[in-house]
């Protein structure tokens, strides 16, 4: 019997309305950091329990204590300032990091949250970081003479955090690089930076890439120096799999099977069909099944329902094909 089709998620979970309100109240100075942290810890435990109840194999802390995926880190690193709000789309804004000096990891960034989440479950919890290339690309730069210089300083900072996560016991470390898919000419820089960030790690390393022109970056994408590349598949109706027939996918894959930008709950049959198509071109022991991207844009109930369908579909396909987890 073969093993494989492990289930996981990409990282973020939806923040419940109470927590959103508390974050807003904290930003207005109406509650203390301790009060906000207490609520974040309670909700993190709820997310861990939810993942256990659904039956996921590899868990995440849900990132309920983070805002934007770059700003959270920049706020805790040396050399960064944070800008006034910048629009991302429509009426959505975020505060963007600004490199104003040499970027350094001056304190642990996520380790305490990882330790807390791991203490709540016997299942493995992934360490979740934003990659150096993406941190660079999604920041303003008022300090560095080149994009490369900035990315490589960030790589060192990310590496220090990854090593700290590993030392704390993390066996899966995911370093997300969603920005690498949009500037194919800079893929070599992203490879160098991620290579520095993952140098010497013994944990299984993962990177998540999304929203890009895969026609242009595949198969060069396989040069990213990690064990597993996590890709959105549902969003493009699993079209990417056809590319794997021409250029085999040589790493482990995080196979996105849920469209995270759609309120609709996928049917079990849809997910099973995607899994069956994936199994035509990839062996089960190299497939980890997850949503296309972070779930933070869904409601808590949508996230629960989507993941429940995903796990049920995986179980049925495992049974069909004689695959054990």
């Amino acid at each position: 019997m073969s093993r494989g089709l492990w289930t996981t998620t990409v990282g973020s979970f939806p923040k419940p309305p109470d927590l959103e309100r508390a974050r807003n109240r904290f930003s207005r100075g109406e509650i203390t950091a301790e009060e906000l942290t207490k609520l974040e810890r309670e909700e993190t435990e709820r997310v861990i329990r939810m993942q256990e109840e659904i039956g996921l194999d590899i868990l995440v802390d849900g990132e309920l204590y983070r805002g934007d995926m770059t700003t959270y880190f920049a706020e805790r690193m040396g050399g960064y300032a944070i800008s006034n709000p910048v629009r991302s789309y429509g009426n959505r804004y975020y505060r963007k990091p600004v490199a104003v000096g040499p970027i350094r990891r001056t304190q642990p960034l996520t380790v305490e949250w990882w330790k807390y989440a791991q203490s709540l479950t016997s299942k493995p919890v992934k360490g979740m970081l934003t990659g150096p290339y993406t941190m660079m690309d999604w920041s303003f730069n008022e300090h560095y003479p080149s994009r490369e210089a900035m990315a490589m300083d960030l790589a060192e900072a990310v590496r220090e955090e990854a090593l700290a996560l590993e030392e704390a016991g993390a066996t899966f470390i995911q370093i997300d690089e969603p920005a690498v898919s949009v500037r194919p000419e800079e893929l070599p820089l992203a490879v160098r930076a991620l290579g520095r960030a993952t140098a010497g790690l013994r944990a299984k390393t993962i990177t998540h890439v999304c929203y890009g022109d895969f026609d242009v970056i595949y198969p060069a994408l396989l040069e990213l120096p990690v064990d597993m590349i996590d890709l959105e598949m549902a969003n493009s109706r699993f079209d990417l799999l056809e590319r794997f027939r021409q250029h085999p996918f040589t790493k482990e894959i995080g196979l996105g099977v849920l469209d995270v930008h759609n309120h609709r709950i996928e049917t079990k049959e849809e997910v099973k069909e995607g899994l069956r198509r994936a199994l035509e071109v990839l062996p089960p022991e190299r497939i980890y099944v997850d949503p296309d991207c972070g779930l933070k844009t869904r409601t808590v109930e949508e996230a629960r329902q989507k993941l429940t369908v995903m796990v049920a579909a995986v179980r049925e396909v495992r049974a069909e094909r004689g695959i054990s987890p």
Partner: protein
Amino acid sequence: MNLTTTLAGSYPKLPTEPGDVNVRVVRNRMDQGKATAEELSRAIQATVRRVVAFQDSAGIDLPVEGQIAWDDEQTPVARGLEGFGIAGLIRYLDTNTYYREPEITGPVRWTRPITVDEFRFAQALTPRPVKAVLPGPYSLYRFSKDRHYREPAEAVRAIGEALAAESAALEAAGARWIHYEEPWLGRAKAEEAPLVRAALVPLLSGRKASTVVHVPFRSPRAVFPVLRELPWTAVGLDLVESPDAWGLLSEVPAGRTVALGLVDARNTRLEEPAAVAEAVGRARAQRPDLTYQLCPTASLEYLPADRAAEKVRRLAQAARLAAGNGGR
């Protein structure tokens, strides 16, 4: 020497002064059912007033309306044309901003004015000519998913004709300048030049208004042999992110205008006006037979409002320095 100052595309909607109308807050309140569509409309108009007045006070010769009501730089126009649907959110090139992907589901046709009311409102606020801003047809096609046309050339021609009709409506409303935002020209390969021509010929031919084809982010080098022959008034180049666009200056036909994108719309680092003026001088020395505009490299909405405003002030100051009056 005359140097016209202008902006590209969209401008930050958020206020820089406490107490000013904040359209973001009003939209949030509307989403929560606490504000009406009329209140949002008033907030948008107040923001346009502020943005136009600011450009006037800074000394921008060709101000823009700022696309204050727009969610992104192409959807509102695609939505206004027949033949387009609007699909999911997708990243806008390499900017970490997003847009809703237009989908071509039938023959693309212009049936009614889309941006004319916005133009009229802004133009009534200033004696200076407001530059109308539209997505360029080649980029609108490349940003869209085409589910209808069998040949890309048919699609781009139809979009070019539709945007020509919108441009004619803007001209009838008094627009003297129309700016077409064409980021995809910087990504087009040489073999796509016929498509670029098919998109832009119906748009630019016979225009009464002066036109700017603005190419942010990357140099349109690969298609410039075709682009240079088209009847635009000005071509806008991003000389910060693509310094190799300087090389195109030698290929611009005599007597045309180049909009020099010398103020970085994608980084908060502030330019020294003297350095910008010096770069303008370099362009003039290289091609004294051309006329010049000075502008940001792209829409200033990639920046927080405070930095965008400071960049506009510095751009105007650089233009004054380049004109030889000491930046006063």
